[in-house]
């Protein structure tokens, strides 16, 4: 393998979780996630030589992954979530079961947002700062604040029901 391939593979190995998380919020079947993963990797490969600031690799990957995912505009935009969440194994640990169910509800709630809001919520939950989210999304920091306030309000309401 060429040196640039090895560098790219090393980077991909370290940050592949980002692509998986973006796939989880946008695609509801394993096949779609696999296809999108390949497409994201292809686009990352094409623009890897232009990655200058290695300190912003995570943000760069998020931007590419989100852009590729939202470009895949599909007819079936009404997702059926229940089929796509991994099955919960009931181990008898009541707390764990409750936490798994809460996570499923959180994921379903995020997927009910529009395509761009999903990314903003994902980045927020992944502890990205407002300025980092603004840079990735291309909107102002104050606009990010307004959106996050609105989206977290919706999530909290969802859990009160």
């Amino acid at each position, binding site marked *: 393998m060429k040196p640039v391939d090895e560098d790219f593979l090393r980077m991909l190995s370290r940050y592949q979780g980002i692509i998986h998380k973006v796939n989880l919020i946008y695609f509801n079947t394993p096949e779609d996630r696999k296809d999108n993963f390949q497409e994201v990797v292809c686009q990352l490969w094409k623009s890897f030589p232009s990655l200058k600031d290695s300190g912003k690799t995570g943000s760069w990957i998020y931007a590419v992954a989100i852009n590729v995912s939202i470009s895949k505009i599909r007819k079936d935009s009404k997702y059926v979530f229940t089929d796509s969440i991994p099955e919960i194994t009931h181990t008898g640990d009541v707390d764990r079961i409750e936490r798994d169910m809460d996570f499923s509800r959180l994921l379903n709630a995020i997927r009910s947002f529009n395509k761009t809001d999903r990314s903003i919520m994902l980045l927020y939950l992944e502890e990205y700062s407002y300025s980092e989210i603004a840079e990735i*999304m291309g909107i102002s920091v104050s606009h990010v604040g307004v959106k996050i306030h609105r989206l977290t309000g919706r999530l909290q309401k969802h859990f009160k029901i």
Partner: protein
Amino acid sequence: MNTNDLKEMWKSRIDGNIQDYSQEELSGLVVKSARMSMKAIQPNIITRLFLGAVTVILIWRIATEGYSVEMDIMYVAVLLLVLVCCIFVERAAYIMNKYNPDVSVKEWLEYRIRQVEKSINYRTKYSFLMYGSALISGCVAYSIVQLLHNVSFNWISIVIFISLFVLILVIRYIELRQYNKTLAELKELYRQLEE
């Protein structure tokens, strides 16, 4: 449940819900990406294949079949026209492949909207001219070949050309409808990002 609880819930469960690929699987994806990046987005793939096939057939006919000088001149003229079309199609593909999605989401949406709008405007303005010219050129070339071969006029040829024209109109309508649908969806995404 406050926002810190939501973050905690996310952080504690997300890794259990995703499955990382192994080094071998990632390596396979990288190799495939290197191959795919040679082709990347292929706009007008059918047009390119068609132009390629026509070029090959014309070159073969010029090189092998013992036609008259007039026929050879006509084939060379058609070949030049096809080669000019190939250049324009490849240039369009090159421009489309240049832009990478390693920009902010808003910038990416703006770029995609601009590209789709450009394509729609171009097709609306020039498609009749392009397809009409292609059809007329085809009719003229076919008629000249018939004349040079002393073949008498027949109505079947006219029916075929009219059918081709209708087919082109139908394809154009479907293509424009798809472009407009894509544009509407992109603009809706942009609106959602802005609100």
